[in-house]
């Protein structure tokens, strides 16, 4: 089956600065893919390319088989877009904006929008510009849910939201996407929220993809190890060990290897370790483990 989103050999530069080279990924139907990366690694660049607001230096991005820079109106109808900062037509009130969008989408679900609006406890005539950031996020989400798109693209949905609104957003989105088999591509800098939402993660570092895996698989296999080592300075040469740090003789590394595999590997290299402890990770810790703390 053709994936909903397919990015092939994407390369992009801003001037001479390489954002990434030969980036490849796909999003199959019904999966929720989270794009994780530190600031400046190219998350928004990827979203812009995907939405057709940036032409990559080379490579192409297909959505529903069409080039993202030149989507037909029928394909745009299938894509729900949340722009960073929950941008909307703030000069309208909640009923005007609902009527406005309903004209563009044949499967419009008015009740899905008003279900969320009822939680806001605001007057129907209140303009969006006079709402808080959290309330605006609910309006933007409500509009996307009412649109009932096949693919949702959400750029940094948690930006500016307090924990309550973030949780509400994630709960609604997750329930909606999973119950209706929607495909979602999402970025957020708050990784705790992503852990509750996404099926697959795509972790980017400067210039490349570090890893693309289902979250369950990552959290099962990727672990943190703490131990004492006689020559910690050589650990950085092992490609199996990510971001080794030694403080006061206590070493911390992250790895996809199991404990015995790690011990065998170090023994093979003539290193002795003592007191090996294995720790399960949250997605946020796994992200730090893969990309480093700074």
């Amino acid at each position, binding site marked *: 089956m053709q994936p909903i989103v397919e990015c092939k050999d994407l390369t992009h530069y*801003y001037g001479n600065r390489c954002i990434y080279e030969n980036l490849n990924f796909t999003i199959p139907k019904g999966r929720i893919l989270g794009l994780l990366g530190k600031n400046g690694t190219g998350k928004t660049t990827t979203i*812009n390319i995907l*939405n*057709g*607001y*940036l*032409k990559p230096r080379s490579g192409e991005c297909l959505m529903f088989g069409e080039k993202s*820079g030149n989507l037909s*109106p*029928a394909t*745009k*109808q299938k*894509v729900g*877009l949340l*722009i960073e*900062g929950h*941008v*909307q*037509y*703030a*000069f*309208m009130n909640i009923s*005007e904006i609902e*009527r*406005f*969008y309903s*004209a*563009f*989408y044949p499967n419009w679900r008015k009740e899905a929008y008003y279900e969320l609006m009822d939680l806001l406890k605001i007057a129907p005539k209140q303009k969006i510009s006079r709402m808080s950031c959290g309330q605006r996020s609910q309006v933007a989400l409500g509009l996307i849910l009412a649109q009932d798109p096949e693919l949702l693209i959400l750029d940094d949905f948690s930006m500016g939201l307090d924990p309550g609104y973030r949780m509400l957003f994630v709960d609604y989105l997750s329930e909606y996407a999973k119950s209706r088999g929607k495909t979602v591509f999402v970025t957020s800098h708050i990784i705790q929220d992503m852990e509750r939402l996404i099926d697959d993660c795509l972790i980017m570092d400067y210039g490349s993809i570090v890893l693309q895996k289902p979250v369950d698989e990552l959290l099962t296999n990727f672990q943190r190890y703490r131990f004492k080592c006689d020559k910690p300075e050589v650990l950085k040469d092992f490609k199996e060990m990510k971001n080794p740090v030694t403080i006061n003789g206590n070493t911390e590394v992250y790895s996809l290897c199991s404990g015995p595999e790690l011990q065998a590997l170090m023994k093979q290299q003539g290193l002795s370790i003592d007191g090996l402890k294995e720790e399960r990770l949250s997605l946020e810790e796994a992200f730090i483990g893969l990309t480093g703390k700074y």
Partner: protein
Amino acid sequence: MNRALLFKEYKKTKWFILGIILAGIALHTYTFLKLGRSFRFAGMEHLWDVIINRDQFMFRDLKYFPLAAGVCLGVAQFVPEVIQKRIKLTLHLPLSERKTIMLMVGYGQLLLLGFFLLHILCAVVFSSFHFPYEFILSFLQTVAPWYMAGLLAHSMIAMICIEPTWKVRVFNILVMIGTIKMCYITDFPGAYGIVSCLLAIVVLYVLPFTFYSVYRFKIGEQD
């Protein structure tokens, strides 16, 4: 869909439209009162002499009003759209980008055109009570470039706002100033004559330039 998009433009600009209408009414009221006073105090004979023999134009106060109206409407439509990044939402609506932009620019152009025609008609009706046909023709030839400047300013502001880079934006501003200058070369009564029709072609000619700005915005041109 078209109606929804036009509704959006209306919501965005309604206070500006009201402002333009009120300013237009105030300007006409002032001009008519001033001319009426001249009729009464100086007499029609003297006024005719001033107009015909000394080539004075009685509606000079209208000169920059259409330009200001075009600029205000263009700014109201396109500046917040770009600054608040709503243009991305607008271009994502399930319409072809060309149609979306055509509807947005067309809304402003038709609104201005309708209002300008009404504004000119009021002046023509007022003048027809006091002046002969030749004066009215000369009046139309004199004010037509000013009103065209308003239409030009509106469509060129759309082009400037949507353009993503400052370098090209500044270049476009200079082009706009130069183009609008063509409408203000002289305010000698009737001086433009048939050239007014050529200016109308320029108004139509610059309209599609906005599509080029949209194209540059879409490919993500940056400074």
